């Protein structure tokens, strides 16, 4: 927003240029309307290339009928080129068109008009640079270059753009400086002419490259900064070469060096390390980083997740790389037993199989998939003895569509239920725990493997939707020896309560102590079909992932009832058990202003310099508390406590948020029947 306004102002410092730009946009928009049969979407980014072309004509020619026709012709050409290039690039790569159409069309316009003597009657007099303060040339050079992005030679425009950058994004601002001086110093050194260097307006290419690579197309990070600066270095060659080449035709290089360099470097980055790239551009690079860190830490899947293969509380007696049998190819296996309070696996005599709590207990399918192989006729060993021949004993091997096999072993003879080929779902009983195979006492062994055979290596995995014996809930957990885990099954009632359907309306009153107002929230689908809550201009995205309801994205004003929802309720396990769980939020939800932006700049260098966790705890079946603590270098810089009451029919009844000494109360307004 602010950026747009400032750019408009900057442009209008020169009226002729500005008018030409507007004519170009208008033409392109009109052309689109004429050629498109029905009302279509609005793509503001399709118009900046025509705008730039308009501006480039405006700086050269005074507005006249001829100029007008020239703008018309080139704006349409640019627009067509933009749409075509966008389509082509989109089809074969994920690359943006940048300002390529502008460079191509403007170069052609300049070349073509060299012969149009009629136009040259309207040629503008050459503007000489306008400065106001007597600053050293190497400082003025930076501002002139910024201004040159919009064809202005007035340093004021440079000041304004620089200010706009600073307000919009500190990261962009710093990159503009770093990019400019890296490029300028290197070029100056090569050309042995530092003074003229700072007068070369084409250096805005360095600025654009640094910003685009360092913060827009890549997520801000040490890596993106380093790539950006190396790109600036590399672009010296491109800039030099194009300048020399274009001079032959009295052409400026426009943004050609920027386009070439950026396209190559971001394409390279996406091939080498896809995690560097920005997938959805939010408000500014800081927001991108914030969202990216949070999304990665919250949801990124490292290993395949499967459910626990049983019901109730079992103890891990051997985990990955276990000392006894989980070695080599078979290092990613997990063994489970049942223990009582005295950590005993049996009651009564230790020599009797039946006395083991685990023996004959149901074994449940950890995944949904087709059964590939079943063994069901191996005798259960007496306590203490093992069967080395059929070391897996009775087992079920199931294929998961994600591309791996799950093997559940040592089952009780004759207990296996599904036949080869059967489809089983998560939680379905597949047999009973036994003592067959290489098993001295009853236990369940589970592993993931890449193929059906014994010599296919096992792969690392995690368990999903589990609780430990201290009531901590984990969406995913890496198994470790001695963990006591229980699978968490959903509560049908809570699933019903959090089943928000398209068109559902809910009314809330929000009272922050100073004022009280009512807000209506609607459940809608966005253009991609994702579910979200909508309140005014704010959107809050939600999903039910397995047994967890969670919010994951917020768009909208800095203050909205939906933002409070996100803050108080990052996620809720939909189960009967009174669990404790943790989650995390993006800083955008917890903090505002300086502190948030400051932390984000630091986080672009080192993510873990700050964290923003939320500790949550059920205090009743329909009540929970959440506590969000923001820490910078382990020091608390923000804290918000919330109490939430779940509505008995749908969603939330009440939230009380305590933040910076103030209290916000959100209450459901009862709908009339």
């Amino acid at each position, binding site marked *: 927003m602010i950026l747009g306004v400032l750019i408009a102002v900057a442009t209008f410092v020169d009226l002729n240029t500005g008018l030409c730009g507007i004519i170009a946009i208008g033409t392109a928009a009109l052309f689109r309307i004429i050629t498109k049969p029905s009302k279509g979407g609005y793509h503001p980014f399709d118009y900046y290339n025509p705008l730039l072309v308009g501006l480039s004509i405006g700086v050269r020619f005074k507005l006249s009928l001829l100029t007008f026709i020239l703008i018309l012709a080139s704006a349409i050409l640019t627009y067509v080129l933009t749409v075509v290039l966008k389509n082509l690039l989109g089809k074969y790569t994920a690359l943006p068109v940048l300002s390529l159409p502008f460079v191509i069309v403007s170069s052609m316009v300049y070349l073509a008009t060299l012969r149009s003597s009629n136009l040259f009657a309207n040629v503008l007099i050459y503007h000489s640079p306008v400065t106001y303060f007597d600053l050293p040339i190497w400082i003025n050079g930076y501002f002139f270059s910024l201004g040159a992005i919009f064809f202005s030679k007035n340093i004021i425009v440079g000041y304004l753009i620089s200010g706009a950058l600073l307000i919009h994004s500190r990261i962009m601002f710093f990159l503009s400086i770093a990019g400019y001086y890296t490029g300028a110093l290197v070029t100056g050194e090569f050309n042995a002419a530092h003074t003229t260097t700072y007068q070369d307006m084409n250096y805005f290419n360095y600025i654009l490259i640094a910003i685009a690579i360092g913060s827009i197309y890549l997520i801000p990070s040490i890596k993106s900064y380093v790539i950006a600066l190396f790109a600036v270095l590399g672009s010296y060659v491109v800039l030099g070469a194009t300048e020399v080449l274009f001079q032959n035709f009295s052409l400026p290089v426009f943004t050609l060096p920027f386009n070439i360099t950026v396209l190559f470097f971001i394409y390279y980055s996406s091939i080498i390390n896809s995690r560097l790239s920005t997938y959805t551009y939010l408000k500014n690079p800081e927001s991108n980083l914030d969202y990216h860190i949070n999304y990665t830490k919250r949801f990124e899947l490292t290993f395949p997740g499967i459910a626990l293969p049983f019901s109730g509380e079992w103890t891990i007696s051997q985990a990955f790389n276990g000392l006894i049998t989980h070695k080599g190819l078979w290092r990613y296996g997990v063994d489970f037993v049942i223990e009582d*309070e005295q950590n005993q696996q049996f009651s009564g005599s230790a020599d009797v199989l039946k006395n083991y709590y685990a023996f004959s207990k149901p074994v449940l399918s950890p995944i949904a998939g087709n059964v590939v192989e079943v063994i069901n006729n191996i005798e259960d060993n007496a306590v203490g003895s093992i069967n080395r021949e059929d070391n897996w004993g009775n087992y079920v091997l199931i294929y998961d569509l994600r591309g791996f096999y799950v093997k559940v072993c040592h089952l009780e003879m004759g207990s296996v239920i599904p036949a080869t080929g059967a489809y089983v779902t998560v939680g379905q009983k597949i047999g009973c725990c036994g003592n067959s195979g290489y098993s001295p006492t009853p236990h369940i062994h589970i592993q993931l493997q890449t193929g059906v055979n014994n010599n296919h290596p096992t792969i690392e995995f995690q368990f999903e939707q589990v609780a430990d014996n201290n009531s901590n809930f984990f969406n995913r957990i890496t198994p470790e020896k001695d963990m006591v885990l229980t699978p968490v099954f959903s509560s049908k009632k809570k699933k019903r309560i959090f089943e928000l359907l398209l068109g559902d309306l809910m009314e809330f009153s929000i009272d922050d102590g100073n004022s009280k107002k009512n807000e209506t929230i609607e459940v809608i689908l966005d253009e991609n079909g994702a579910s979200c809550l909508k309140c005014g201009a704010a959107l809050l995205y939600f999903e039910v992932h397995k047994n967890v309801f969670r919010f994951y994205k917020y768009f909208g004003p800095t203050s909205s009832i939906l933002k409070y929802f996100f803050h108080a309720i990052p996620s809720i396990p939909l189960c009967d058990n009174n669990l404790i769980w943790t989650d995390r939020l993006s800083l955008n939800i917890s903090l505002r202003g300086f502190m948030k932006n400051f932390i984000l700049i630091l986080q672009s260098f080192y993510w873990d310099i700050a964290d923003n966790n939320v500790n949550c705890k059920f205090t009743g079946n329909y009540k929970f508390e959440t506590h969000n603590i923001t820490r910078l270098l382990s020091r608390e810089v923000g804290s918000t406590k919330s109490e939430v009451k779940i509505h008995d029919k749908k969603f939330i009844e009440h939230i009380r948020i305590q933040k910076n000494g103030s209290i916000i109360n959100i209450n459901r307004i009862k709908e009339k029947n």
Partner: protein
Amino acid sequence: MKRTYEKPIFLEQNVGFANKFQSGYYEKMTTKIDGVPVKDIMDNFGSPVFVFSEKTIRETIRKYNRAFKTYYPKIVFAWSYKTNYLGAICSVLHTEGSIAEVVSEFEYEKARNIGVSGDRIIFNGPYKRSGILKQAVEENAIINIDNFDEIYRIEEIALQLNKKIDVGIRINMNSGIYPQWTRFGFNYESGQAFSAAKRIAKSENLNLNGIHCHMGTYIVTTKAYMVETVKLVEFMKILEHQLEVDIEYLDLGGGFPSKNRLKGVYLPPDFTAPTIEEYAKAIGETLLANVSPEKFPTVYLESGRSIIDESGYLLTSVTASKRLLDGRKTYILDAGVNFLFTTTWYDIPVKVGIEIEGPAEDVTLYGPLCMNIDVVRENVKLPPLSPGTPLVFNPVGAYCVTQWMQFIEYRPNVVMISESGEVEIIREAETLEDVIARERIPERLTKFEL
């Protein structure tokens, strides 16, 4: 030790018995409870006195949870208040995750008073007073409807509150046990239960989301629970298909036996009753085999006596002995059927609280009530007991401290032994003030001369 004089008597020789168990009464001694001497408890808290072992309660409920949850994941125990609603006892069970099951206004209020929120209370019973029913509805309690008139009353309340209420229904069925309780809930086989469900499903203000069945008590066959579970699941599927309701819970009631000895059963319960693992297996495997995982309902278990009975002891003293005309020896204790209501069904095992020597003899134990029915044990083998000898009745944790009566005597102290061995009072002995606190004597009757 100084030996006390005991008058010589003639004893009939019971050869087989004597041979097998020697003199029999060594087994019949309980001198300590959780390591605390019986004598000390009585010295400090009087006689008689009820004693509860927190350790036993916790071990039992944990064992039950482990057994059931390893067979079926969505098990929730609901503490049957009527079995024992002493605040401390309920609280121990609530800290172990059990929710509350109540059947009256008083029990509902008691649960709320202990700190259980309405949505964690199952409200059962054939008559729920309108006032408390309304409160339960407002507090989102889990309500199981018993009869058609209750459907109408609850619908009325829903209308008043302008609310759509989740409700369950109680059903009764033939699960192969005798007697079949048919007076509670709607009968399954006759189609009455389906009619009730249909009536509820048609209601604008009611939403049927649960089915409850409590078959009876002291059920010593796991088969009955299998049949019950099969029928409940079958009913759930019928309702979901035909009435498009979503059944969120099945409540299987209670009824597992305790280790008490039913009158007229010769073998002790360890031989006659299945273990809790066997009940868990019967119920859990039936559920797993008949319901697909996405549809797993929450399963409530309202087990009462089986969980609490063993943890409760009554310590009482011999006050006198008397030989009846037929030569039978009898003792008069300071606690009778007023505190041991369950003697109606059980021969509650009794043991001597201190070490005593002497040959065991068949005796009868009477309570202190001046009533002919006050017989605590008709026939039990005990060594000679002198006045003041402590006797230990166990198990008495279930129903005794709820069905006891204030008749003639003040009700005694109830203490609990904590896991660390401290003995704490959880209900003080009554005094005259307690008993007369609610009495009003009209002014005109306050003066009299005799």
